[in-house]
Each structure stands twice: as structure tokens, then as C-alpha cells.
């Protein structure tokens, strides 16, 4: 039996480099190896650190708590009464200006230029033509003086007006039997609410606060204002609305906050 020599690789250089390169670059080669070794031990060390509490925190415990949070979503949608109206207040109780909150400070708000601004429409909608600000201002306005309740525990009374979301969704021919309405925002914020909450009579696309166009920090030119959700669900600086049956993971949901967050 003859043993065939291995086939010569196509990529093998015809002229092999001189062995002297090894000697010339000895220092470099050794340092690369040393670096690799150091890196290896470091990540091993990092792993032992993780096993202390963070692995359980991030993985097993966290996934369990999120399962419970998803269960609580279902309970909350059962508790939700689509006809139950939130208390409303008088003009004299309105706080001016509203309270600012975002995942960054007010100084870092990027104002939207209304020239050329359009509201994009996507998903299960018949008429997906984008809406200009003038068109939105021309839509019948609904005003509501309601409480904004933050997940942190603070609250204030605000006076918001703009198109009723149900009327708007009907107008654009959205599939009202779809599961979710998603709001894509200018600051890469994504919010997603259940359809019954979107169709609640106190859910509007707000363009005004206390009778004046909403100012930049509070969501100019268009934001969501619903009386049946915790504060952070009220997306600001909306650039597109999507109607879908696929759950879209929202900004705060990714951080571990409850998705439904109904009040």
C-alpha cells in the first residue's frame, strides 16, 4: 500500500519565506503569544466574577421574572375596561410647562424641523400615504385634561389636544382588529401599545399642550397621550405609526419594565 503525499496547497507560496524572519521578529511573535495568554486569563477571571451574582441576575432569574411580567401583561389586559374613563380635571389645575422625562436629559433633546416633516404609516393600513403637519392640524381635535402618572411615582395634570387615535386609525383604514399599534420615534425610541388601549376614547395623538403647539422637549410636533397607560408609554417625537400583529419590543421593555403598563 502506498501512502500518497498530501496534495500541495494552491495557496502555498512557491518560494517559502526564509527561516530568518522568525529570528528577526522573535520579540513580536512572543509578545503576541503573551498577549493572547493574558487575554485568556482575563476573560476567565471575568467569568468567575460573573458567576458571583450577575449570571443569575441576568439569565435565570431575569428570564423567570420576565415570564411573570408577560403573565402580568395578560392579567392587565383582562383587567382593562375599554369603556372606563380616567378622571379629568379643570383648566386651573393644569401644570405649565409639563414635566420632562426621557432616557436622556432635557439639554440633549434634538428638536424636529417641521419643514418637510411627515408622519409615516406602515403595516396593516390601507392608505399608507404619509401625513404632513398641516393635514394633522386639519384633523378634528380632541382635548383632554388628564393625569400623567410616571412609573417612578410622580404625576401631574396636563391639558393635551390633537386627533383622537381611533378616529385617525379609522380614517387611514387601519386594521382595528390587529393586535398592536407601534410608534417609531425620532430619538430611536420605540413604543408599542395594545389595540384596545389605542382605541380607548382618551387616547389621542397630541399636537398641543394647553392650547399651544407642544414645545420641543415634550414631543413636538406629535406625541401619544393616553389616559390608560403609565407615562413612558406616551411616545414623543413620533415619526411613524405602524399597525401590526407582531409584538415589537419597546425601549423600556428591553430594560426590564413591564410592557403592558396599563393604569
Amino acid at each position, binding site marked *: 500500500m502506498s501512502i500518497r503525499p498530501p496534495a500541495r496547497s494552491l495557496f502555498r507560496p512557491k518560494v517559502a519565506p526564509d527561516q530568518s524572519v522568525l529570528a528577526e521578529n522573535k520579540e513580536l511573535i512572543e509578545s503576541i503569544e503573551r498577549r493572547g495568554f493574558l487575554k485568556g486569563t482575563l476573560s476567565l477571571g471575568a467569568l468567575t466574577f460573573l458567576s458571583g451574582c450577575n449570571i443569575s441576575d441576568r439569565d435565570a432569574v431575569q428570564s423567570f421574572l420576565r415570564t411573570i411580567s408577560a403573565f402580568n401583561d395578560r392579567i392587565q389586559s383582562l383587567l382593562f375596561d375599554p369603556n372606563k374613563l380616567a378622571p379629568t380635571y379643570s383648566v386651573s389645575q393644569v401644570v405649565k410647562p409639563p414635566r420632562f422625562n426621557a432616557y436622556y436629559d432635557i439639554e440633549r433633546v434634538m428638536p424636529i424641523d417641521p419643514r418637510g416633516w411627515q408622519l409615516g404609516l406602515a403595516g396593516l393600513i390601507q392608505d399608507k400615504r404619509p401625513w404632513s403637519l398641516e393635514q394633522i392640524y386639519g384633523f378634528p381635535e380632541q382635548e383632554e385634561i388628564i393625569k400623567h402618572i410616571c412609573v417612578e411615582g*410622580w404625576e401631574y395634570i396636563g391639558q393635551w389636544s390633537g386627533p383622537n387615535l381611533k378616529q385617525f386609525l379609522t380614517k387611514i383604514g387601519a386594521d382595528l382588529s390587529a393586535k398592536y399599534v407601534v410608534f417609531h420615534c425620532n430619538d430611536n425610541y420605540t413604543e408599542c401599545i395594545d389595540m384596545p388601549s389605542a382605541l380607548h376614547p382618551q387616547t389621542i395623538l397630541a399636537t398641543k399642550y394647553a392650547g399651544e403647539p407642544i414645545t420641543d422637549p415634550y414631543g413636538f410636533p406629535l406625541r401619544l397621550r393616553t*389616559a390608560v397607560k403609565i407615562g413612558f408609554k406616551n411616545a414623543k417625537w413620533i415619526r411613524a405609526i405602524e399597525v401590526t400583529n407582531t409584538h415589537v419590543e419597546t425601549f423600556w421593555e428591553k430594560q426590564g419594565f*413591564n410592557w403592558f403598563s*396599563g393604569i
Partner: protein
Amino acid sequence: MVAITETRAAKPPRRMHPLLLRIMHWINAISMILMVMSGWKIYNDEVIFGFLHFPDELTLGVWAQHALQWHFFVMWILVLNGLCYLAYGIFTGRFRRMLLPIRIREIIHEMVAALTFRLKHTDLTHYNAVQKLLYVGVILLIILQVITGIAIWKPVQFSGLVSLMGGFQAARLLHFIGMAAIVLFFLVHVSLALLVPKTILAMLTGGPRIAPPSRHTDENVGTNP
């Protein structure tokens, strides 16, 4: 209390704290502690009293959202266990037997005795008036705490409940006060239990066996066959 003289029944008389009750007691204790610890983290995000922040070492959850996850998980255990406990206490007659009646005169008398270290604690199976008051009090407190919690959780769905409490911030404050009262009970309860360690042992192993039922008292509700 009458000593056990004869037991014709095959089963020995049941213990002061039956196993089911002990399990419910400890589930309640653990879930209450977890609720308070996660609650403190949630509170820290928007304090009611500027001077009061709870130290991170005593709170549960890395960030507020994790504390919220814990709070809204443990609430189920607390409520379901609590409902079982209430049903047990009512239907076995334990509440009536152990916690009632509470007489004001006895409370004053035993309070004075306790403060002058003359309160006798010979019979574990019989609660004195101060104990009865504290136990009934903490049961009512936890029920109220669940109700104020529901008001804060769903202030629109239960807007009537919130306005009954005087608004959302008032409901928050009541939830805080309820927590403070439960923590106060916890401190008193644990210190008194540590002073009389056999009470802790009783809640772990069941404690002394209860005398056979007497025809003249209503102690036979749900005890021996």
C-alpha cells in the same frame, strides 16, 4: 389549660400550629420581606420624604425595573398565600379560637404587665390580649396594603378606590404608611419571639399539642376527630 390525661384516639391531638399553618406563616414572612425590600427600591426612584432613601444593601433589584419585576411577582405569592391563610383561619375556627375576643381592659392590663416585665408567658397555646391585637392588626394591615397597592397599580381602572383614598399621591402615602406599620410589627414580633425562643420553635415544629376538645368551650372547631 387542661393537661392531656387520656387519648383514646389513635391520632395524637393536633399541634398548636398545624403544618399547613406553619408553611403559610413562613411563605408570608418571606414574601413580605421581599415585598418590602423591592418596595424600598421602587420608593428610592421617587422619594416621598426628601430625607429618606433606603440603603441599596437593604433593597432588592439592581435598578427600579428589577425591583418592580420582583414586586409584581411576589405580590401573587403574598395574595394567594394570604387568601389561603384567611380561608384556613375562618373555616377551621382558628381565628375565633386564637385571636378573639380582644378585650380592651385585658389589653391595658397586659400592656402594663409587659412594660413592667411582669407579663407571664407560660402557656404558648393561649395568646394574651396584646398578642391578639398585634396579630389581628397585622392581618388587617396586610389586607389594606394589598388594597392601596391595587389603587397605585391601576389608578384608572380603580379610580373610585383612589379618590376614596384622597388621590393617587395619598394612596402612595398610605401604601408607604402601611409598609412602615408592617415593618414596625415585624420588629416587635421578631424581638418578642427572640425573647421567648420557644415561640419560634413552635412555629417551626408545631409547638405543644392542644388539649382534647372540651364540650364547654368552642375549642373543638376543626381540631380533633
